[in-house]
């Protein structure tokens, strides 16, 4: 029928949804997408959440997650149409011809079984290899993917290896049965940037060496540019643009693609520090209850009125712990927090209502930071009541004012969080923090869970609010691009210490310390060949040392 490995024609996918307070109804997720993939090629599927990219990826295995159902179109794998076949034939296809690498290897490995058992399970089940052959192949793949101790790592349980290693094990799991096609679904999204680079390179090498074809799904255009031959841009279940990687990155045709390529329009001129910082963290050393090691060592930083201090680092670097110390959730073992010319009590109980009001917080997960059974009006109105004793008309007027500031209309006042998009939820959280008229807002990874364009909108909003309200932000993030976009000064944290600190222009200018250099050079850049360049440079450096 077709020479192509994978051919998708007019694919339509729907799902049954259960909106609160309404009758269940069917919605369309993907409306007629077509593409083809040759043997050994990599196609990147890119788009924001809800674009249907994962759904399309899984459709190549004729699999629908949850209530998702393929409602129309045709999918051929190796010339066989698979949507019409029965479950038994599909099972022969899954795990042998087409395999899947998911976003979170930590959740996708069975915690009760050894890694090796899971990596070779599909090969054994399908009778493709004997146990011995499969194990030898797994060890070979572990080696190829740069895992430490490849002979024995399979004997470990998933919780005994790191996140980056497990993600590589997942890739080995997918490649072990010698599939023709692998679906990579955001395989590096959950990893730190410095880890991402290694995993990305390992995946790229493995794809090249085994000659397997791949669908590479991600929301990060800079990442997909490194690994794919072609890119397809998706939006709300429609194809926007499909072309070679070079064309999409360098000559995008559609406006939406151009937006994706040139995202981060937020620009921020760093301001010099003023004389009196509003918040000073002085020599803070802290540890968690019941442990006997410090997670913060002599952390010192200053935040000036109306400015933004970005605290940047990877997971486990202590940036969120610093926020917990500042908010009083974790009293430090040593050191002090000064706020607006006074000492703050180390623990929450000792702080006055005024202390609480002037220091507000916005969280990463907006949906869990709001009571799902309260309306937007109630959520924003609560601090107005609590701190200012506002009631009735006065309160409502102020809520509407705040909604206006976060660029949402009056009609949102009676909506519930479930009726809002991710970006809108985060905006409501911002309004709730602003309602207290704080001097400082701690923003903990506030854009990490959002799509790039939405995140960009939130950053712009925060920037504008800062100009109007003269509020200072302590901005915690692992994303260096965000830092560049909004910071006045930067503190780089690593293993509980501030390794580099100062005004943005100084921190981001060479000469760098080793860690900052590693961190900065690991941020994917939106150009072809970046990955090879970085890896090559690192090899040369380590050879030179």
């Amino acid at each position, binding site marked *: 029928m077709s020479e192509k490995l994978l051919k998708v024609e007019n694919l339509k996918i729907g799902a049954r949804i259960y909106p609160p307070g309404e009758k269940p109804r069917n919605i369309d997720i993907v409306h007629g997408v077509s593409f083809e993939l040759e043997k050994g090629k990599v196609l990147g599927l890119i788009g924001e959440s809800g674009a249907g990219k994962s759904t399309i990826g899984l459709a190549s295995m004729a699999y629908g997650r949850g209530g998702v159902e393929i409602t129309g179109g045709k999918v051929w794998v190796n010339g066989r149409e698979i949507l019409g076949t029965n479950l038994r034939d599909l099972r022969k296809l899954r795990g042998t011809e087409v*395999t899947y690498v998911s976003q979170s290897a930590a959740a996708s490995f069975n915690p*009760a079984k050894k890694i090796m058992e899971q990596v070779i399970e599909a090969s054994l089940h399908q009778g493709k290899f004997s146990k011995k052959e499969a194990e030898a192949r797994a060890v070979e793949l572990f080696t190829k993917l740069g895992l430490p101790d490849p002979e024995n790592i399979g004997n470990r349980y998933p919780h005994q290896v790191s996140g980056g290693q497990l993600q590589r094990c997942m890739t080995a799991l997918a490649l072990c049965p010698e599939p023709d096609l692998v679906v990579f679904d955001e395989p590096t999204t959950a990893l730190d940037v410095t880890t991402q680079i290694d995993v990305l390179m390992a995946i790229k090498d493995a794809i090249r060496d085994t000659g397997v074809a791949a669908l590479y799904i991600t929301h990060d255009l800079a990442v997909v540019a490194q690994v794919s031959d072609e890119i397809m841009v998706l939006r709300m279940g429609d194809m926007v643009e499909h072309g070679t990687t070079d064309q999409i990155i360098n000559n995008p045709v559609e406006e939406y693609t151009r937006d994706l390529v040139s995202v981060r329009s937020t620009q921020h001129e760093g301001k010099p520090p003023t004389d009196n910082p509003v918040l000073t963290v002085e020599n803070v050393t802290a540890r968690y209850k019941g442990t006997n090691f410090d997670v913060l060592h002599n952390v010192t930083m200053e935040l000036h009125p109306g400015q933004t201090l970005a605290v940047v680092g990877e997971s486990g670097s202590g940036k969120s712990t610093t926020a917990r110390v500042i908010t009083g959730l974790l009293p430090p073992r040593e050191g002090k927090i000064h706020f607006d010319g006074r000492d703050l009590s180390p623990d929450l109980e000792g702080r006055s209502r005024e202390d609480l009001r002037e220091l507000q917080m916005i969280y990463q997960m907006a949906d869990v930071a709001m009571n799902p059974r309260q309306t937007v009006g109630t959520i924003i109105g609560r601090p107005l009541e609590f701190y200012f004793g506002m009631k009735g008309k006065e309160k409502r007027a102020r809520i509407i004012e705040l909604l206006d500031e976060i660029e949402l209309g009056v009609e949102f006042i009676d909506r519930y969080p479930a009726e809002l998009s991710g970006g809108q939820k985060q905006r409501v959280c911002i309004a709730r923090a602003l309602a207290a008229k704080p001097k400082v807002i701690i923003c903990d990874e506030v854009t990490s869970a959002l799509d790039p364009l939405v995140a960009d909108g939130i950053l712009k909003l925060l920037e504008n609010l800062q100009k109007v309200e003269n509020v200072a932000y302590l901005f915690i993030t692992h994303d260096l691009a965000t830092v560049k976009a909004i910071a006045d000064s930067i503190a780089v944290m690593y293993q509980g210490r501030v390794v580099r600190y100062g005004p943005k222009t100084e921190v981001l200018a060479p000469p760098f310390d080793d860690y900052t250099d590693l961190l900065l050079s690991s941020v994917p850049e939106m150009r072809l060949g970046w990955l090879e360049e970085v890896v090559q440079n690192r090899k040369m450096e380590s050879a030179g040392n």
Partner: protein
Amino acid sequence: MHPILKLVAQRLALSTLLLLAASVLIFAGTTILPGDVAQNILGQSATPESLANLRKELGMDQPATTRYFNWLFGALQGDLGTALTNGRDIVDSLGGRLKNTLFLAFWAAVVAVPLAIFLGLLAVRYRERWPDKLISAVTLASISVPEFLIGYVLMYYVGVKLGWAPTVSTIYDSMSLGEKLSAIALPVTVLTMVVLAHMMRMTRAAILNVMQSAYIETAELKGLTSFQVIARHAFPNAIAPVVNVVMLNLAYLVVGVVVVEVVFVYPGMGQYLVDHVAKRDVPVVQACGLIFAAVYIGLNMVADIVSILANPRLRHPK
């Protein structure tokens, strides 16, 4: 020390403490019961002197704490005292009864536990379809009917009408295993029906909970069949809650079979206890209480330990 050993040692220590506390409760409870054993033994015509003498003989004149510790140390050495009513050594008469009860409970468990787990897996495999609904309906119905009624109904139809199994389940040491099993066929059936639903529902719920996990999707995308996914990937992660409910039901099989024993005239612990409660034979009641408490606490401790062992994070620390 390996963290598992530490956790297991903790559980053991806690269980011992708990058992000690239970022994205090049992002793205190039986001591404050109204009624007088001496009066009971001697009857209406007893003189105050003979009552006082008998009490002294039974050690009833000593303070309660002394009696408690005497009883406790005796029990620790395997001496549970003598029955007041017939003067026999309690350990001797209890031993055979306990053996019979454990025999019945064991065979009920051998049938019920695998059946419950298998039905649970089956219900998950066909969830929300007719096999699931049928399994749920039948097991729930059987748990809802009083066990003595099931007992008599089975006795009438299976025992009397069809003649497939004896209606009286008395067993003797001289019987062969086959004869014994045939004798207890009906009570085992009744007990199985009583404990099945609970274990089956828990297995179903625990596995359905695990079925939401991402690694189940991974397994499905490997091309495994539904039953393989459930048995190989879901079940190992559902062991802890399942074991807990299995152990609770095993404890019930040992401790709660009084009615079934009476219905089928089975010479077990339950009947023995009921007889002696009626006669106010305090040492026997205390001994039975202590053994029941030990069985309950012991089985729950086993459940805890199995849950700990089932957790790979604890079994294989980083």
